[in-house]
């Protein structure tokens, strides 16, 4: 019997394909209603922190340096009220083999795939994770396919994604490139079925637990060098794994740093729109992923996402594209460092937030990423200009994503704009209730309190208002 490979038929086989390609029976953690045992899932399918460190260090991942940005701090203090301006640091994750922190997630996923006897790995990603999986698969001797959304219907590729394809190929992967659309998932499922490879999803427990080493290292490095934990840690937030893993690692180290998420504001742009695809200058770390994945994590490519950022986020801010570009150029100009856009999103936020903090406090941006052709501010800005985006100096708070990019007329105009976390928490609770057919149990209410980093009172209050 031939298997039907049309869209509906393949999507109908999703659960079966997923089970075979991830090797996790997620039903073991389900309660039957809203609650599921998140910690049990992380424990039984993930690895201990020590095991993850061993795995990562054995493939040259991790132990990246922390750099103090003294000139950027000095510039922030010039913009801040008297006595304000925390010391700004970055953790130079670009020093990982594939040029970003994603090597941590990939190291674990690929290790796990090899241990289970898979011959290859597949990941659906247009981001740094592709190169990370390709790099780790190369070390492990596994085959690797990366499926990426790259071109609009005119065949014009986003420069940054084109560069990521090049890097994946340079590291030995097959890169399957697609035009814009969520049906990428359909081709992804077909490839998993055809090859029998491991689904190196970004959202499995191994992938997320792989980032815990980053949070843990931060605490250890700060204690050794500065005698205390950083007061605030800023994470660029998209799918939520970066923030979730880092925060979990900080907690495992006993650190109480404030955890802040930061995303580039792309409000108004539809992520699945062919016409808008090349009107954005950021391919990840933006609100188009950050907002939906934070307020409903289980929209990912696995049944239960291990990335659940609302559990860990103390604060969530957005930043304009023009502000990130400005800080990226400032980093090169004042610190002699050229880095890619992901970490610089959090850095632009940290530059503003440092100005609210005292001078003896410390704020850390927990990642940097590599930069190069396509994946650099100059090609991104000139690409935006070619696509009809107006680029000028002014007030970045007036930037309209897809129409303008506004560099701040003065660095003091760089602002971290608060996202209403309670609004996102209410949205998460509402979606959970809408997806549940039965009556809510006490366990469900406690679960929702954990999911939203609130308490029973908050959850009950939201439930009453629905």
């Amino acid at each position, binding site marked *: 019997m031939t298997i039907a490979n*049309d*869209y509906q038929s393949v999507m109908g086989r999703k659960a079966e394909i997923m089970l075979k390609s991830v090797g996790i029976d997620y039903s073991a953690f389900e309660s039957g209603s809203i609650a599921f045992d998140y910690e049990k899932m992380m424990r039984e399918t993930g690895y201990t922190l020590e095991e993850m460190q061993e795995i990562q260090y054995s493939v040259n991942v991790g132990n990246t340096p922390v750099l103090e940005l003294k*000139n950027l701090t*000095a*510039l922030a203090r*010039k913009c801040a009220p008297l006595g304000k301006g925390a010391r700004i640091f970055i953790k130079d994750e670009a020093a990982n083999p594939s040029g970003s922190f994603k090597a941590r997630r990939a190291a674990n996923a690929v290790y796990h795939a090899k241990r289970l006897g898979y011959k290859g790995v597949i990941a659906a990603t247009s981001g740094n994770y592709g190169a990370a999986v390709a790099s780790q698969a190369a070390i492990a001797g596994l*085959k690797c*396919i990366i499926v990426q959304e*790259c*071109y609009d*219907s005119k065949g014009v*590729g986003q*420069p940054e994604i*084109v*560069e990521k*394809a*090049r890097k994946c*190929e340079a590291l*030995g992967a*097959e*890169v*399957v*490139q*697609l*035009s*814009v*659309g*969520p*049906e990428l998932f*359909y*081709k992804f499922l077909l490839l998993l079925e*055809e*090859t029998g490879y491991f689904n190196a999803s970004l959202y499995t427990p191994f992938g997320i637990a792989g980032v815990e080493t980053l949070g843990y290292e931060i605490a250890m490095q700060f204690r050794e060098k500065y005698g205390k934990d950083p007061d605030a840690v800023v994470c660029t937030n998209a799918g939520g794994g970066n923030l979730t893993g880092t925060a979990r690692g900080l907690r495992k180290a006993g650190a109480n740093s404030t955890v802040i998420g930061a995303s580039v504001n792309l409000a108004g742009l*539809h992520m*699945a*729109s*062919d*016409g*808008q695809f090349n009107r954005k200058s950021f391919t990840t770390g933006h609100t188009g992923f950050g907002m939906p994945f934070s307020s409903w994590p289980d929209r990912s490519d696995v049944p239960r996402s291990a990335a659940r950022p609302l559990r860990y986020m103390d604060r969530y801010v957005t930043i304009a594209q023009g502000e990130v570009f*400005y800080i990226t*150029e*400032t980093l090169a*100009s*004042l610190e002699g460092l050229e880095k890619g856009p992901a970490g610089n999103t959090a850095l632009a936020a940290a530059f503003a937030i440092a100005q609210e903090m005292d001078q003896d406090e410390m704020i850390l941006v927990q990642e940097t990423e590599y930069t190069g*052709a*396509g994946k*650099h*501010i*100059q*090609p*991104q*800005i*000139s*690409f935006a*200009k*070619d696509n009809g985006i107006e680029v000028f*100096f002014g007030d970045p708070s007036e930037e309209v994503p897809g129409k303008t990019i506004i*560099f701040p007329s*003065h*660095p003091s105009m760089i602002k971290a704009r608060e996202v209403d976390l309670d609004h996102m928490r209410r949205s998460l609770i509402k979606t959970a209730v809408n997806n549940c057919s039965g009556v809510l149990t006490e366990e469900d209410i406690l679960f929702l309190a954990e999911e939203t980093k609130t308490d029973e009172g908050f959850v009950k209050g939201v439930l009453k208002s629905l």
Partner: protein
Amino acid sequence: MIKKGEWVRIHKIILQPSERAPQVPEDTKQVPLEMWDKGFLQEDAEIGDEVTIETVTGRAETGTLIEVNPYYEHDFGKFVPELLTIDKQVRGILFGGDQA
């Protein structure tokens, strides 16, 4: 004539506009879902022919032959004068006008 065994790039329509997922926005629904892949050509062919390739993972994939010895052309973009303005400004604020 492109010889069997050459490194090539192919293009293929994965979903016609009528087959696209219901949740995609209107503009995306008007166009097909396209795919590009690379591999070793399995038979002698000309640009525009329907061909089979063997990818680096050993998979067979079919599609229209569009390029032989494909290479990347992405670069560092055109000159963006605003970046020099930013340099001058931040160095001026931090170190003073003379050293900017």
